[in-house]
């Protein structure tokens, strides 16, 4: 089936079987391998992307359902000249990743979190990030990174 969507601000088209998940369409058909697939049944959060601005598990949506939607993946976080997003910088600075497999989902969840909960405290960050599983960091560094990025955003230089 033909699916027309906007991915990271650019028009995209894929021709896929109905059973193709959005995650597989992004990775296999559009070459955007930043979106990772862990469990493929909606538990680990690694495949989280933004669909029309709201976080969604890309493994629990079929690509055909995204026809006409705007999708943002981790590739869409950095700005035009390739500079990392402040959240990505904070993950680097605060040891928010080790192997990096969960990171794309963490970043997309955190990006939405900072948009919807300005000034989020650590308790809120932990609650909102609870749907993303990390097996390396023990989460402290991730919470530190999201908190630091939120603080940096709330106090413009």
């Amino acid at each position: 089936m033909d699916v027309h969507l906007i991915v990271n601000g650019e028009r995209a088209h894929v021709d896929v079987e109905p059973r193709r998940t959005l995650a597989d369409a992004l990775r296999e058909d559009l070459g955007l391998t930043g979106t990772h697939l862990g469990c493929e049944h909606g538990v680990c959060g690694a495949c989280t992307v933004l669909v029309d601005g709201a976080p969604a598990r890309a493994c629990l949506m079929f690509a055909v359902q995204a026809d006409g939607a705007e999708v943002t993946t981790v590739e869409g976080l950095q700005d035009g000249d390739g500079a990392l997003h402040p959240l990505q910088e904070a993950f680097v600075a605060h040891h928010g990743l080790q192997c990096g497999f969960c990171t794309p989902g963490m970043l997309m969840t955190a990006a939405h979190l900072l948009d919807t909960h300005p000034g989020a405290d650590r308790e809120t960050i932990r609650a909102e990030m609870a749907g993303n599983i990390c097996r390396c960091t023990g989460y402290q560094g991730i919470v530190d990174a999201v908190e630091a990025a939120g603080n940096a955003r709330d106090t413009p230089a």
Partner: protein
Amino acid sequence: MKCAPFDYVRPAGVGEVVTTLRQAGGDGKILAGGQSLVPVMAMRMARPSVLVDVNRVPGLSSVETDGDAVRVGALARHALLQAQPDHPLLAEAASWIGHTAIRTRGTTGGSLAHADPSAELPVVAVATGATVSVAGPDGVRELDAAELFTGMMTTSLADDEMITSVRFPRPSRWGFAEFARRHGDFALVTAVVTEFGDELRVTLGGVSAAPMRAHAAEEVLAGGGSARDAARAASEEIEPTADLHGSVPFRRAMAAEMVRRALVRTGVEE
């Protein structure tokens, strides 16, 4: 972990949904939020031959006050229930469902039709005496939530029927308590207390195949009993089963504690 092939249909109206389901002859499934259906399809525990995507059916996504109740469209997402101010019990219950990325997709109609014994909204539906509107080949029928749930993930819906909206009456007082291993996990026990008129209802989720009223606990309350007495009665009348998440005594103890908390939050003397 990839779904088996299926035909995909995206109807523009409820009538077309029903017709498509009827033509599928029992082998069609409605795709709403997909947060429960797609995982079981990925694990090949479900292999519908036709998927009927109702996400673009108009007019099913609103939450509106309707007299002393709130009418929720079948496609209203959990995130919307969580944010709406008109039915605080529904908002509280929705906040316990999964995680943000689940709540942005999962729907009210889908949660009721899936009828997971650990899910929050079926418990609230029974606790408030909700009325479920169901479209089928012969038009729309209404049934009580208690008649909808017939067993473990089983409802009285026919293969060619679709929930279109749910009317949740507003209790005068209420209390909600849930225990899960981690926030966002499926509940081991959910207790909802609702007051309508002089009647206090105690409804439990996670302890039986379908949401159940704890009638013994309600009788204790009607007789002027304390929250602790009612909690003990509830823990004795349930028949939980043991699994890797907990033994029978543990589940009884958790049920008692959740009932106690929900009653205290309602304002019942401890």
